[in-house]
């Protein structure tokens, strides 16, 4: 399977069918108002389940302090996202949460909308799909347990109770083995404030300015903002590493298709793109994923399998 260049408008994103295991109350019943749509990106590698979506989160949504076995970035489109006690990210800021690094608890105050990307990180742990998640959740409920306040709770036949982070429980149910986490590369989530960066002209692309916001991990996963002046064109090019580009403001045109606000591009390495044009100007949020170059990923995946076998032994 090989990936293609993919473009999506917001109206081509798909509503998530699986319910969240987070939120206050049983099945998050006391935290209504979570609406997620996801862009059906296919990175062309079976083991990589990259999730990029537009999340609208209502007041009162709750997630306990936890960590993941994947990487993620969250960009605040509107509102303010709670990231811990007395700590909110305002509109226009973003946070990188590396695999293994703890964050939260999150107590959302007021509505917030986010662009969220989640993807296997340097340890190449498998990230389960929504369909797999649903099957695992059904099995966990059938076993007599339930999800409450972001925790899976079940009473054992011997009378003692098990409380486990909900994502952890679902992952273990699907994979049939205990989850393992990367030892954190970074102590805390990295909160990026784009207003503290300068727009720098892109010497290779007239009319394009860039804010390099940072690159992280041994693979150099990076995030940037690009600003296209009205009439600017990103010429046809071949990328060395996959990129996900999301339009934050303005509008662009690709091969005759208009990609406006919250529309996105997924561009694998090695394929020649068409020019990207912007008559009115645009601003992109750009993630570069060198780890997903096929040969790089295959080596990382093999290492990951070796680690799992070592743990199992």
């Amino acid at each position, binding site marked *: 399977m090989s990936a293609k260049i993919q473009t999506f408008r917001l109206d081509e994103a798909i509503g998530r069918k699986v319910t969240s295991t987070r939120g206050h109350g049983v099945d998050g019943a006391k935290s209504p108002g979570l609406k997620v749509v996801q862009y059906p990106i296919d990175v062309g590698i079976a083991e990589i389940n990259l999730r990029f979506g537009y999340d609208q989160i209502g007041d009162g949504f709750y997630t306990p302090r936890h960590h993941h076995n994947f990487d993620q970035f969250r960009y605040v489109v509107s509102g303010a996202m709670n990231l811990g006690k007395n700590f909110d990210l305002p509109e226009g800021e973003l946070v990188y949460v590396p695999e293994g690094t703890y964050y939260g608890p999150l107590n959302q105050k007021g509505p917030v909308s986010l662009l969220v990307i989640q993807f296997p990180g340097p340890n190449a742990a498998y990230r389960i799909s929504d369909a797999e998640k649903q099957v695992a959740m059904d099995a966990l409920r059938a076993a007599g347990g339930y999800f409450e306040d972001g925790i899976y709770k079940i009473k054992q036949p011997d009378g003692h109770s098990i409380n486990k982070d909900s994502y952890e429980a679902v992952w273990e149910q699907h994979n049939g083995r205990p989850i393992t986490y990367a030892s954190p590369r*970074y*102590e805390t989530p990295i*909160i*990026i404030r784009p207003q503290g960066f*300068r727009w*720098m002209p892109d010497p290779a692309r007239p009319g394009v300015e860039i804010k390099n916001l940072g690159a992280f991990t*041994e693979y*150099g996963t*990076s995030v940037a903002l690009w600003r296209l002046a009205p009439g600017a064109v990103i010429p046809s090019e071949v990328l060395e590493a996959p990129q996900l580009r999301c339009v934050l403001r303005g509008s662009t045109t690709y091969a005759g298709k208009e990609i406006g606000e919250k529309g996105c591009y997924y561009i694998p390495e090695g394929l020649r793109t068409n020019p990207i044009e912007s008559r009115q100007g645009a601003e992109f949020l750009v993630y570069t994923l060198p780890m997903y170059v096929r040969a790089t990923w295959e080596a990382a995946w093999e290492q990951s399998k070796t680690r799992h076998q070592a743990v199992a032994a």
Partner: protein
Amino acid sequence: MKIAHADEISILNDNTSVRTGKVDKQFLLKGEPGSPGNFKFGLFGQHDGFYSPRHRHNFCQFRVQLTGICDYGANGKMTPGTVAFIAEGSYYGPQGPDVGDSYTATLQFGGPSGQGYVTMEQKAAAKAELDKIGVFEKGVFRRNADVPGKRNMDGFEALWEQANSRELVYPEAAYAMPVLVHPQNFQWKPAPAAAGVEQKILGTFMDCRVPCAIYRLGPGATFPAKARGIYLVLSGDGELQGEAYRKYSALYLDSNETAQFKAQQVSEILLLGMPNVSDIQAQASDARVLEHS
């Protein structure tokens, strides 16, 4: 290009510190005073009871924990091996009071805002003046009641304003808090175009892409250094531009310079990058408000 070896440099007790607790310092490398790319690099000891209030600076820093522990409160603890990047304008701490002795390698340098870095000599002169009109207590400068001006100021801020005769206006922080990196949790990867050399890229920060990485050289391997910054030998020995390098030898490389480390024994070399001065001075299209004129 400059090279220094810690075992050839004496340890000084610092009398210009505005924080609480004993500090000793080995100054290894310094930049060009007055330049936006000015910097200071050294090995610093902080001893039992060191305390620094929550504060920020108008320059960037890398801190590398060599021994002991530094506690930055909500920002986390620096344990041996931890590398911290603190962007100009980012608040951090409070630090301590630390227990026991702590040694760090610290690089302080002018960041993208172009505000540069005040020299030790400037700070010493400023502190001598401020000592006449107030006292430094727990990292805070408290001005005497009969002297006009702010009663209480962060100690560094007071020194900077005294040295520059103007108000310090901090740059917008690029990152909300220090980035604490744990290199032991990164995987070694082959370094491109350098046989026998592996690397851990720890991060690239700020709009001018300041790099931080560790390189591991096998015996006989050669590592071509080429990015602007400080290269600190963490372990091993070999040859650097005709000199013998060993633990805590340090190289400063300017933009467009290159140098070669040739390892005799397995060596680990830490790169603490700094922005190219041309990038600091680049005409950004909406440059942030930097300083009062």
